[in-house]
């Protein structure tokens, strides 16, 4: 449950405060929310609130910066695990300091997610990377796996930070700031009364998808989720496949240039041209490597996160019939849903636009390489005397 200390409000715009009030009331409070109980200065219809949700966070309003890095391996007698450094920089008053550095392991992230789901059953909580990779032969602690996980964990925390409600979660704050001992003692506290009630609401909200006579918009939402899930999974598979093919192309290309260099050693007249081709191929190979990195940094993690999101959104269903309680759950969920959809569109759009940009860059680099080779060759032709024609 989000708590708003008075002084924190001065850091936020009036608009954001209004939104947060609305979220807070809709999210955690199990009692009926009467639309008319909203203060007259606030917009009275949920729809206008939703509109405001669509505005992207202005950069100057961002007052919480988080990075996850520096994976470290820890070996004990019972187990081996990895911890990550979670570094926070903030100007928020409710934080005791402006900088924090803690170490967290995957279990801690799982705990945080669980707490957030408990406290905000009708909000869309960001997904965590998978516990372990089932497909492929990726070892639990391979460099690639750790890096992929690190990126995803970084994204997870930043998503929470960017969420208008979740960002003020007390558990979130503890996660970011508590040193090891403090965190374990905080974890031991049982779930609060409000969160127990929250669980019921969540069950109800989720159960809406199983009930026949549910409102139009939930049918719509359900259909959207189903199709989206299908498509995003396909896109994920395609993107992974492209990565694999490009990787194999890169592996073959590594050999291609050197053969031309080898050949040039046994030639005289041709040595120049062959050497030129060899260095072009090497440069193109390097450009390919950069293209690969781009894919794994920009496109794949974004798409995969949405695969995880879609899995979560597809969750079903304990059928409940508490329709009156459902009413308030609907509103909050719907607003968060709209926000989520907008983010999704932006993220997918940027990820693909970024990939396109990187591909353009790749081809431009290769083009420049080959063109300069041709220029050099034609210069040579200009300098050579004409051959005797047979």
């Amino acid at each position, binding site marked *: 449950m989000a708590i708003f200390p008075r002084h924190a409000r001065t850091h936020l715009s009036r608009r954001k405060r209004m939104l947060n009030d609305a979220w807070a009331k809709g999210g955690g409070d199990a009692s009926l929310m009467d639309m008319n109980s909203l203060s007259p200065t606030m917009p009275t219809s949920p729809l206008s609130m939703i509109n405001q949700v669509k505005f992207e966070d202005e950069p100057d309003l961002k007052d919480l910066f988080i990075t996850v890095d520096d994976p470290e391996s820890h070996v004990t007698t019972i187990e081996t695990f990895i911890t990550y450094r979670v570094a926070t920089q903030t100007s928020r008053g409710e934080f005791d300091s402006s900088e924090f550095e803690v170490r967290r392991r995957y279990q801690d992230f799982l705990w945080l997610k669980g707490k957030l789901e408990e406290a905000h059953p009708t909000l869309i909580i960001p997904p965590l990377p998978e516990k372990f990779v089932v497909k492929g032969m990726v070892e639990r602690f391979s460099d690639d796996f750790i890096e992929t996980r690190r990126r995803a964990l970084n994204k997870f925390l930043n998503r929470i930070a960017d969420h208008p409600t979740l960002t003020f979660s007390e558990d979130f704050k503890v996660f970011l700031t508590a040193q090891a001992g403090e965190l374990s003692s905080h974890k031991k506290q049982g779930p609060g009364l409000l969160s127990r009630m929250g669980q019921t609401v969540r069950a109800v909200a989720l159960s809406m998808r199983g009930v026949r006579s549910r409102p139009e918009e939930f049918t719509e939402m359900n259909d959207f989720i189903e199709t989206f899930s299908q*498509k995003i999974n396909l896109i994920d598979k395609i993107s992974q496949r492209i990565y694999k093919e490009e990787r194999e*192309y890169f592996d073959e290309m590594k050999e291609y240039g050197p053969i031309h260099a080898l050949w040039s050693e046994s030639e005289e007249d*041709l040595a120049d041209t062959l050497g030129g081709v060899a260095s072009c191929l090497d440069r*193109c190979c390097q450009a390919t490597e950069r293209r690969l990195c781009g894919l794994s940094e920009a496109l794949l993690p974004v798409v995969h996160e949405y695969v995880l999101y879609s899995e979560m959104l597809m969750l079903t269903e304990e059928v409940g019939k508490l329709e009156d309680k459902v009413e308030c759950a609907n509103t909050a969920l719907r607003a968060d849903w709209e926000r989520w959809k907008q983010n999704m569109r932006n993220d997918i*759009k940027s990820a693909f636009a970024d990939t*396109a*940009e990187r591909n353009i860059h790749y081809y431009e680099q290769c083009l420049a390489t080959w063109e300069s080779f*041709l220029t050099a060759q034609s210069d040579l032709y200009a300098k050579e005397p004409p051959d005797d024609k047979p």
Partner: protein
Amino acid sequence: MEEAAPALERLLQPAPLEPLGHPDAGLEAAVGEEAEGAQDEEGPGDRTMTENFWVKKIEISVSEAEKRTGRNAMNMQEYTAYLVETRSVEHNDGPSVLTDSLWRRYSEFELLRNYLLVYYPHIVVPPLPEKRAEFIWHKLSADNMDPDFVERRRIGLENFLLRVASHPILCRDRIFYLFLTQEGNWKEIVNETGFQLKADSRLKALNATFRVKNPDKRFTELKHYSDELQSVISHLLRVRARVADRLYGVYKVHGNYGRVFSEWSAIEKEMGDGLQSAGHHMDVYASSIDDILEDEEHYADQLKEYLFYAEALRAVCRKHELMQYDLEMAAQDLASKKQQCEELSTGTVRTFSLKGMTTKLFGQETPEQREARIKVLEEQISEGEQQLKSKNLEGREFVKNAWADIERFKEQKNRDLKEALISYAVMQISMCKKGIQVWTNAKECFSKM
């Protein structure tokens, strides 16, 4: 490679400036007579035509390929026949007139080449396109009857004929002329030359080493070079095939985006249009690889030609090696005979010989017997000296002519390969430009989503 035809068009003239001795000139003339004899029925005009043939400009093309079913000893067999057309051009800008047109199959091309190899051992004989598809990547077919393979072979065969026609010595060969002009009976004429008998069977044993005491350093180096060339080009072709395979995969998988985007756009109200058009560009990208790789296949064929040329180069070195070996053997034989003669004459036995031993054991031979033997040896020695002299002359002629052709070949190789490598760069540039265009369009669509 369609451009190869006009580019390799050459003015066919009689002997080039430097008179090149032709060891088998006599044999060629004989072949010519036989051929003419066979042509008696055709008419009085053809002898003049033969003489004038080499003065006019001619164009050769292998213009068509046709599937046929033929009878052989066992069963009906499918094969491909190729149409060989010869045109002559009166003046430089004049129209070309079709003078000859006939069908040949691959085995006849092989026969022609094998004949040339025997009669022109000092020439780096142009190679034929590969018999079976090699260095293939998954999309290409290994089937000899596959239309793409047949098409590339057609171009390769045309290239072979143009190479022969533009060679200063080979172009004058009668059998080559008949290959272009006489469809029926040509095989019999070739076989009648008896070239198979003349062929040194030892050449077939590629790895057999002949210990040459005084190898010509230039030929040793050349053989080494041809081995290296073969090795590096085949390695290059193998990697290129793998690279092509991977590149094909990268492009084609992007096509799947096209399908998914298009399906997704049906339900996505906001991003719908952007997704749809982006999907279209992904399809364009995916299909662009087909043309790109087709062009690259022609480039690979150009390299393959030189892979096989390396073999031809090596063959010349081998022939020289054998010649040198025969020469040394003959010299050795002569030397030993001379020594035997000397021993018999002077009565001294310096070297061990079975005859000597048996003589010692079983009694001396009579002076008459000894005289007879000396006489035989002297005759043999005289014959041997003559042979050695002519072998030496042959050897020197061979080296002179071979080296001239090797120089010619080297220049041709450098020109052709340089051109091929540059054309490869041009292909890469074209591919990059297409890539930039497609992704720029796609980026625009994504940004508008």
